[in-house]
């Protein structure tokens, strides 16, 4: 059981929830009000949904031994272009306008993904650098779109994406569920996941084995861009405004963290979507817990840093070995001898 890839993420999440159970039992209470469910657990799912979506895209990118630093900027650009389209169109509450805005934003974020894919797969640039370009320039583009201002929109259908509710649950949860299902089915029920993992192990070898490794990489970066775009829509619709400067700030880092906590190695070749989901939930639960137990919000970052370090250390093979060798103070030369020969 210790060997199972979900063991450590699940125990961290379990420990967090247990802590909450002991510290503040009302954490688990869910109440019904006006036909909507309210409660900390629902909040975690609701506010965590953009992060989960970005992290799903990031998982696939990291599985191909890549990394996408530009997701935060894409989040900002998607929100900015959607809000700009709505604020400039007439008939503020028209649903067609919202659909057009969503369409433009998603197409644009796919194009940005194509750009990343082109740099990585087409030109053969190192992923961390290729996406660094869009990370730096993208924030500028987002500010260019919003003209450096915060665009506020008052559009009911648009607001529904981020803060509406369906069947008593926040609508964003359904978006996450749909995306997660699609991603899992595509990668686990078709051979696509195998292709991605094979490209992550060795692109050249998988190309020789008949996999179009460049196409796979292209697709993965496009998918990651699309995910970031969806997250950008949810985030901006949640607050009904687009801020080119601060929207999605540090999202790339949180998403990478979620992926790493979930057990996916940054070295590529293996990925766990479920682990990523749990990783993102850990991050969100941690944030909520920190707020709830009355730690001043300014210490959130310190606690987050410490938890990240602990999670990474626990997952580190050499750290565990060091600990175990400390515990085993007595040495049995014969034992190691046997192991050596075995």
């Amino acid at each position, binding site marked *: 059981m210790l060997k199972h890839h979900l063991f450590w993420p699940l125990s961290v999440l379990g420990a967090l929830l247990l802590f909450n159970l002991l510290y503040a039992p009302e954490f688990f209470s869910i109440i019904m009000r006006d036909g909507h469910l309210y409660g900390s657990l629902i909040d975690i799912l609701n506010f965590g949904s953009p992060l989960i979506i970005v992290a799903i895209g990031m998982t696939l990118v990291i599985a191909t031994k890549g990394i996408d630093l530009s997701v935060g900027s894409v989040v900002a650009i998607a929100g900015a272009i959607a809000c700009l389209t709505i604020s400039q169109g007439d008939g503020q509450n028209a649903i067609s306008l919202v659909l057009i805005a969503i369409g433009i934003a998603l197409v644009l974020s796919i194009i940005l993904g194509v750009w990343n894919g082109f740099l990585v797969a087409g030109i053969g640039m190192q992923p961390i650098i290729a996406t660094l370009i869009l990370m730096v*320039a993208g924030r*500028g583009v987002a500010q260019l779109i919003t003209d450096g201002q915060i665009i506020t929109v008052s559009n009911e259908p648009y607001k529904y994406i981020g803060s509406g509710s369906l069947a008593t649950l926040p609508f964003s949860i359904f978006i996450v569920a749909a995306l997660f299902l699609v991603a899992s089915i595509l990668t686990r029920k078709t051979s696509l996941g195998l292709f991605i993992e094979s490209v992550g192990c060795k692109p050249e070898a998988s190309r020789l084995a008949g996999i179009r490794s460049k196409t796979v990489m292209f697709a993965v970066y496009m998918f990651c861009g699309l995910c970031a775009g969806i997250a950008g829509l949810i985030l901006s619709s949640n607050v009904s405004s687009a801020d080119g400067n601060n929207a999605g700030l540090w999202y790339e880092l949180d998403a990478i963290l979620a992926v790493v906590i979930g057990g996916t190695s940054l070295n590529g070749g293996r990925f766990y979507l479920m682990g990523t989901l749990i990783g993102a939930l850990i991050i969100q639960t941690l944030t909520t817990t920190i707020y709830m137990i009355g730690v001043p919000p300014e210490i959130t970052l310190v606690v987050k840093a410490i938890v990240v370090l602990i999670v990474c250390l626990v997952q580190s093979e050499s750290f565990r070995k060091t600990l175990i060798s400390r515990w085993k103070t007595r040495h049995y030369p014969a034992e190691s001898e046997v192991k050596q020969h075995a």
Partner: protein
Amino acid sequence: MLKRQYIPILVTIGLFALMFTIGSFRYTGFFSLQVILNLLIDNAFLLIAAVGMTFVIVSGGIDLSVGSMIALTTMVSASLVQAGWPPQLVIPLVLTIGSLFGWGMGAVIHYFKIQPFIVTLAGMFLARGLCYVISINTITIDNAFYTSVAQTKVNLPGQNFISISVIIAMLVVFLGIYMAHYTRFGRNTYALGGSEQSSLLMGLPVGRTKMTVYMFSGFCSALAGVVFTFYMLSGYGLHAMGMELDAIAAVVIGGTLLTGGVGYIVGTFFGVLIQGVIQTIISFEGTLSSWWTKIVIGILLFMFILLQRLFSGRSWVHRR
């Protein structure tokens, strides 16, 4: 004969000259020594941080904690000075904190074999968080020593001047060049970035070099923080937001390969100057907004990476 390995760095210098020439023809008052000196005055802290970052990147790692370390330094300095500590004590203290912080990250990276990206990311969160633990507000500094350092102008011939920060920055650059090319530590760093496995087999002190590299980067960030304190005369948790990216961009524009093993401090120096020139041109233009800086730097990054790919013989697809 021109060595192939010098081409990226010459292109960097050429681009700087080209941009400066374009600026000089386009705007009156652009062509003067003082404009160049102002580039140094305004970017002294970035220069110092980028020198440390160059060593980390040459060794094959990355340090994301630079910006938040600068903020933490301004915060610690400001609060201690406000509490009545003498600056002669505060400055060595923050430099020690920075070095120890970097050394700690290096140790975790080396001993527990966790990617530098993640460890320094945690370091970034930690340092930024500690800033807010100290205070969430701006702490101003009205200490006589700090204000006098901030206002001192070192006169140069021809009515030009530089600030003390520039002198510190230039000393760091020269120290960096010396360390990189004339010491055993520098050679070990290049070897480590070339191939960690080979350096280990060659018997180089891989662990010590790695930790020293991160320690030096931490020291540089703390020193950059001190210079930043002179520049801003305040401590604030949001200072130097995203500066690690500026530093990485400067290093890349300067011709250093992110895969490690190849790079020059001089290139980083011009990388910082190029970023400064872009900002100066945008401010001379007047009508262009500041976000164009980010877009132009992004385009430049793109061009330089393409260029490196053309000139560097090695294939660096998926090497990290």
